[in-house]
């Protein structure tokens, strides 16, 4: 039996105090297998030990929430017996090491989280953060990640309908790949992971187990240095074909009533799935590894328990239903094996070649796992309104902004994703939120992912609020009622007090915004240690939001649709240039305060706009976000090539008015009579509103004098991404 040396303990990412705790809990020295199990279950990735204490502060309930955080994904009631099930998850480190497979397996993993609960996935989103465009690695990473996401999602036949792409030097050595999956189920047919009861068969389904990604879970919790690019664990390779079969087979099995509990094998595969199922069910689990379908010869117990081979599930069946289940999986040509049984011992017992290689109390892996209140050091938020050159020509700046990396069209990305398969995508990428119909109904789900990392860097709390507010606003802008969010908290090393502060403040900001906007958090994921050589990423709490349109025919889109519509802005335009894209791209400075978020106003303005859309009074809406008012208007013009002639409302300074990033704003275009009514109603409700001009023509004209062809703007807007990627050595394909 292997002697457990301090080196071995350290290699497993366990601190001395953690190991001392293990000895206490076990009452003896752990076996190597047990040490491996502890190392993954107590890793940041599985135990949330740095964030758990703080996450408790998030609001997680509402009348429509059927399942909050704690299961594989959250569940909300969308009426008529339908449930929406969704979750977002990161695959940051694997995607940096091997962009195609890292991103692909990230997509596969989040899909399993959703269909393991009984849902058929109906939409995918992806929030991506890359290093600066000029960094030598960026193109290759963009190419690999995008084709990996497409390669997996397209094969699954689930439309990838939206997301985000940002570029910033802080991601040069640590990109972020966050994937979100949304699925549909019937409220009465939702499956959970609690392995209740003793004497029930534990079955293994899906692909065989190989030596894939062993210690991936611990890797995802360890800070990167250039060396670890060498001493990396074996990379997992995705098999979307097998996943598609697994999806159909699971849904077929779920149509029976043979399942007691089911759970995907994600990070730490067999270990975390069995431990979590036993823990939630208050039962014990006994596994016989000799029964595990194996891809490689003479795998050790340690390797099997820690393997992260993809496309696998663990289920607990009602006794006697094994044959029925096996028949389904054989039909789909998948592996199926009874590998264990539930017990009443609350212990995880692992046998291999007749010997017991692990025997540990399951609570030691869950409740007893460490929870830290790590020290944090508050840093004053960036403040002040930066100076700017008031003589710059707004139209020239607009053209430059639209052709800049963070604002340019993402068409190059989303045209590589099948975003129309399943024939229910009623709003494709390019708008504020994706809209996907509930098959065979007039209902639809609106989906968005948002966060503005530069705001979070300037002010972690206000920036996190803004992420939630923008997600809520994007759903509102298409006419949906925002219902719930899933978050993906990407931060640096929590053992650094200034980073821990970003996390604590970020959670506070998300909590405040979700409370104020009635927008509960029903699931999420934390990805910490996103640093390279000690340099942290911008704090990036990505928010995935889902809303409901009861009548999809009333959906609004950003495109100007008629000549002569009045262009109106709802919400206060104070000219906040701090941390704006304008300041960074045109003045070359990243400074000033992040735009403050007034949650009460945010709600008031959004409810007003949503009311107009749901009443069928407006069909043309765009929220104002990155780039400010003029960028929003230009996007509305470019969408169908209908121009507009607009001017300042009153006589404020032009630059801050057109490019400031004040929150809580929407641009609406409506026929004259309707527009007049809207303006009156807004005024009556004390909602700031201003008429900016009229749609029409093929040019965007400022103050009757300063004009640019919409087609010219579009050329720059559509041109940046393809031109940038044309410099790629060779497209990454599978």
């Amino acid at each position: 039996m292997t002697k457990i040396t301090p080196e071995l303990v350290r290699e497993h990412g366990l601190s001395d105090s953690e190991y001392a705790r293990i000895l206490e809990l076990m009452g003896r020295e752990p076996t190597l297998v047990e040490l491996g199990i502890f190392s993954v279950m107590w890793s940041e990735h599985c135990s949330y030990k740095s964030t758990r204490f703080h996450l408790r502060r998030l609001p997680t309930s509402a009348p429509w929430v059927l399942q909050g955080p704690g299961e594989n994904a959250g569940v909300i009631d969308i009426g008529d017996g339908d449930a929406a099930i969704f979750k977002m998850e990161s695959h940051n480190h694997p995607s940096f090491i091997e962009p195609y497979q890292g991103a692909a397996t990230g997509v596969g993993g989040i899909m399993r989280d959703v269909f393991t609960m009984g849902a058929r996935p109906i939409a995918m989103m992806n929030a991506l953060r890359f290093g600066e465009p000029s960094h030598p690695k960026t193109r290759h990473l963009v190419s690999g990640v995008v084709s990996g996401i497409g390669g997996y999602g397209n094969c699954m036949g689930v439309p990838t309908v939206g997301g985000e792409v940002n570029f910033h030097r802080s991601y040069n050595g640590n990109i972020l790949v966050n994937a979100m999956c949304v699925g549909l189920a019937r409220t009465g047919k939702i499956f959970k992971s609690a392995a209740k009861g003793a004497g029930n068969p534990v079955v293994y389904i899906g692909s065989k187990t190989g030596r894939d990604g062993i210690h991936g879970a611990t890797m995802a919790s360890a800070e990167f240095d250039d060396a670890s690019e060498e001493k990396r664990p074996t990379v997992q390779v995705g098999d979307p074909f097998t996943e598609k079969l697994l999806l159909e087979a699971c849904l077929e099995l779920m149509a029976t009533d043979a399942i007691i509990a089911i759970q995907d094998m994600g990070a730490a595969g067999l270990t975390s799935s069995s431990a979590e199922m036993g823990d939630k069910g208050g039962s014990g689990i006994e596994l016989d590894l000799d029964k595990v379908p194996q891809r490689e010869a003479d795998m050790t117990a340690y390797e099997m328990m820690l393997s992260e081979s993809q496309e696998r599930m663990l289920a607990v069946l009602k006794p006697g239903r094994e044959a029925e289940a096996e028949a389904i999986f054989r039909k789909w040509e998948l592996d199926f094996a009874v590998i264990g049984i539930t017990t009443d011992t609350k212990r995880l017992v692992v046998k291999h070649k007749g010997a017991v290689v692990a025997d540990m109390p399951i609570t030691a892996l869950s409740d007893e796992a460490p929870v830290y209140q790590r020290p944090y050091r508050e840093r004053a938020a960036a403040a002040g309104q930066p100076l700017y050159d008031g003589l710059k020509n707004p139209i020239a700046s607009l053209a430059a902004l639209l052709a800049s990396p963070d604002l340019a069209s993402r068409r190059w990305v989303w045209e590589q994703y099948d975003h129309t398969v399943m024939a229910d995508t009623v709003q494709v990428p390019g708008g504020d939120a994706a809209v996907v119909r509930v098959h065979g109904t007039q209902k639809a789900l609106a989906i968005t992912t948002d966060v503005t990392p530069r705001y979070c860097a300037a002010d972690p709390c206000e920036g996190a609020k803004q992420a939630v507010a923008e997600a809520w606003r994007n759903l509102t802008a298409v006419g949906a009622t925002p219902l719930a969010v899933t978050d993906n908290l990407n931060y640096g090393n929590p053992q650094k007090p200034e980073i821990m502060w970003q996390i604590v403040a970020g959670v506070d900001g998300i909590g405040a915004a979700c409370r104020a906007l009635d927008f509960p958090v029903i699931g999420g994921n934390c990805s910490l240690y996103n640093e390279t050589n000690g340099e942290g990423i911008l704090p990036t709490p990505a928010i995935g939001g889902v809303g409901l349109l009861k009548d999809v025919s009333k959906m609004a889109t950003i495109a100007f649709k008629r000549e002569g519509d009045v262009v109106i802005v709802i919400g206060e335009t104070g000219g906040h240039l701090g941390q704006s894209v304008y300041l960074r791209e045109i003045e070359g400075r990243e400074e000033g305060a992040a735009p403050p978020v007034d949650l009460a106003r945010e709600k008031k303005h959004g409810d007003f706009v949503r009311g107009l859309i749901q009443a069928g009074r407006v069909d043309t809406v765009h929220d104002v976000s990155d780039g400010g008012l003029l960028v929003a208007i230009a996007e509305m013009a470019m969408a169908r090539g209908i121009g507009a002639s607009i001017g300042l409302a009153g006589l404020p300074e032009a630059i801050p008015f057109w490019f400031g990033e004040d929150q809580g704003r929407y641009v609406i275009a409506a026929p004259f009579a309707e527009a007049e009514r809207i303006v009156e109603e807004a005024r009556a409700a004390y909602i700031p509103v201003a008429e900016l001009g009229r749609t029409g023509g093929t040019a965007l004209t400022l103050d009757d004098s300063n004009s640019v062809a919409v087609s010219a703007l579009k050329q720059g807007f559509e041109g940046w991404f393809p031109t940038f990627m044309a410099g790629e050595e060779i497209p990454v394909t599978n």
Partner: protein
Amino acid sequence: MKARVFITLKNGVLDPQGKAIGHALNGLGFGSVGEVRQGKVIDLELGETDAEKAKTDIKAMCEKLLANTVIEKYEIELK
């Protein structure tokens, strides 16, 4: 001079394509087929005439571009 480069997955790395091909061949009645692995072959024409020099060049090409050395290995064959 002509060269042929074989790029195959490292041992132990899952090969979904090979797995599916093997499965299909068995299904077609080729029962004697065991493990199947699929890789790439890249045929190059080189201006270079010195074999040694060519080998070093191709090795560099593999490391830089042709092989994804995270999961793939390569063999070089000069003809």
